[in-house]
């Protein structure tokens, strides 16, 4: 038993180092990873980096332009925008990653079951997938968010519910290919259970694709979180970049031309999304055999 586990660990280790050797050569992938690491550091060390607390009001006059004391100026409540942006990193990262994880799990399970079992199961699951694919995400997202109410957890659930469908489609078509492989047929002939075959033979074959899709999904989730918060449906207890833009829009900072309040949160969203897009495409190039020939 222990030996099995050791063996598993060492194969994992060699697989990972092999993967890392390929990944290292991808310039965009490395740039994305570097950008992501900076944001992770900002999020983890927010309490040390941010000069003021998230809820410290009137640390300056309202709408102060940038200065040495307030790098990005202040908002309508006299809060330090620089500190808000630093704290906002946490919400965007945590919601982005957990929502993407949840949506990948839902999409992965639906795709695996639909692709493996086929027939009526496939028909029903694909119709449900199509339903979520056809309706604009924002419609379901706004209605769901309004029903569930604004909270951190609800945001994650709502984003996962509206974003899982493309993953289900991708995984299903991959499963359809893997299912036809000789050793899967052999496993079936020997009498292995469906559950065993799915976990032991199908899942390992779609895991790399699932992982690459999850990374790309994080960028969608970050944008979705920003959109919901911008519309005022975010959790008011946690400052996120989208919410800073919501306040900027609502407080008239935009019409007054207070650029320091509007630029930084948007640039942060852009850079974090870009980081995940870079990493995602680098992974896709490695795991997606169709792209390798280019």
């Amino acid at each position: 038993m222990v030996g099995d586990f050791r063996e598993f660990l060492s194969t994992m280790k060699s697989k990972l180092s092999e993967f890392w050797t390929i990944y290292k050569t991808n310039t965009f992938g490395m740039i994305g990873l570097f950008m992501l690491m900076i944001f992770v550091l900002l999020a983890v060390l927010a309490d040390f980096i941010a000069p003021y607390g998230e809820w410290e009001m009137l640390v300056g006059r309202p709408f102060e332009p940038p200065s040495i004391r307030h790098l990005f100026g202040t908002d309508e409540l006299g809060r330090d925008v620089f500190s808000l942006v630093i704290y906002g990193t946490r919400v965007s990262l945590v919601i982005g990653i957990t929502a993407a994880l949840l949506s990948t799990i839902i999409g992965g399970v639906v795709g695996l079951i639909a692709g493996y079992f086929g027939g009526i199961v496939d028909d029903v699951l694909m119709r449900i997938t199509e339903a979520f694919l056809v309706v604009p995400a924002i419609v379901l997202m706004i209605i769901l968010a309004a029903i569930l109410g604004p909270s951190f957890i609800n945001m994650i659930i709502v984003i996962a519910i509206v974003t899982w469908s493309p993953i289900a489609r991708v995984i299903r078509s991959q499963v359809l290919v893997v299912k036809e492989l000789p050793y899967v047929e052999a496993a079936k002939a020997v009498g292995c259970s469906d559950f065993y075959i799915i976990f032991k033979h199908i899942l390992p074959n779609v895991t790399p694709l699932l992982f690459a899709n999850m990374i790309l999904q994080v960028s969608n989730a970050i944008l979705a979180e920003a959109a919901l918060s911008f519309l005022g449906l975010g959790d008011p207890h946690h400052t996120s970049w989208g919410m800073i833009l919501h306040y900027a829009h609502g407080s008239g900072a935009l019409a007054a031309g207070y650029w320091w309040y509007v630029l930084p949160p948007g640039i942060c969203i852009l850079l974090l999304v870009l980081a995940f897009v870079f990493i995602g495409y680098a992974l896709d190039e490695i795991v997606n055999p169709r792209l390798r020939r280019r």
Partner: protein
Amino acid sequence: MGLREYAIRRGIETIATFFILITIGFFLFRVMPGDPTAILILNPHLDPKARQLLRQQLGLDQPLYMQYFYFIKNFIMGEFGYSYHNGRPVLELILGVRLLNTVILVGTSVILAIIIGVVIGALAALRRGTRVDVGLIAFSLVFYSMPVFWLGMILLMMFAVYWGLFPLGGTVSATLRHQKIVEVITDYLWHMTLPLTALTLIQIGYNFLIVRNTIIDILMEDYVTTARAKGLPERVVLYKHILRNAMLPLTTIVALQLAGIFTGAVLTETVFSWEGLGRLLYEAVDSRDYPVLQGLFAIITIAFLIANYIADILYAFLDPRVRYK
């Protein structure tokens, strides 16, 4: 499978999807906090008997399956009741100027984004690896990763607040009444410029990447080599052999993206106070106007199902390979 059978099969599938969406809608609007009469209890003068009567009228005293049946009936007949907010019929509120405004904004931006996407995509693919190509890729990735509402805010701040070239929002100027039709159109286009720019720029990045990659693939195809070997002028090869084949995947992808583009439109309309469906949706959620929300859900669902169906059939017509899958 012939085109007719394919169209019928996809039609049945679309109807199945429609019923799934109705069911989702039913559960969404039934679990909404309180039933539709709850908002009326806020009125202290309403006596319990009147509420009971209202529940009867709305069919809320019926068993759940009957409510479901009524929900489907109203969904199909377009009976969504009256707005809590201004008392107007929901259908009239949706199918009017607001729908027109959204269709004009989204339609124009989709067409513009396709044209620009094809042009710069072809340019980059034909000069693969050059500075032009790398520059265009960087440009498209940046716009692809940008929240559309933020881009809108930046455009608004630059062109409306600082330079005063365009209005701060709205669809037509309030002062414009009983003017010549030309002036009204000019004013409308003037108001539309900034939201249109934001919504188009966001789509270009995606279209560009699709066209560029498709053309790079096509350039390696044998028929392109053959066309060139035949001594056809490069212009003919580009238009007849390369671009024509590159348009195909783009058509489907744009059709698939339509839902995503609408999402962008809702956000853009919010930033620019554009009087469209997106803004109506935002306002309906803001004031918890459930009849309007329900009506919007129904109309948008039906519209996108039909659009998706048409796109599918069109694609099968253009590319017969799809039908044999």
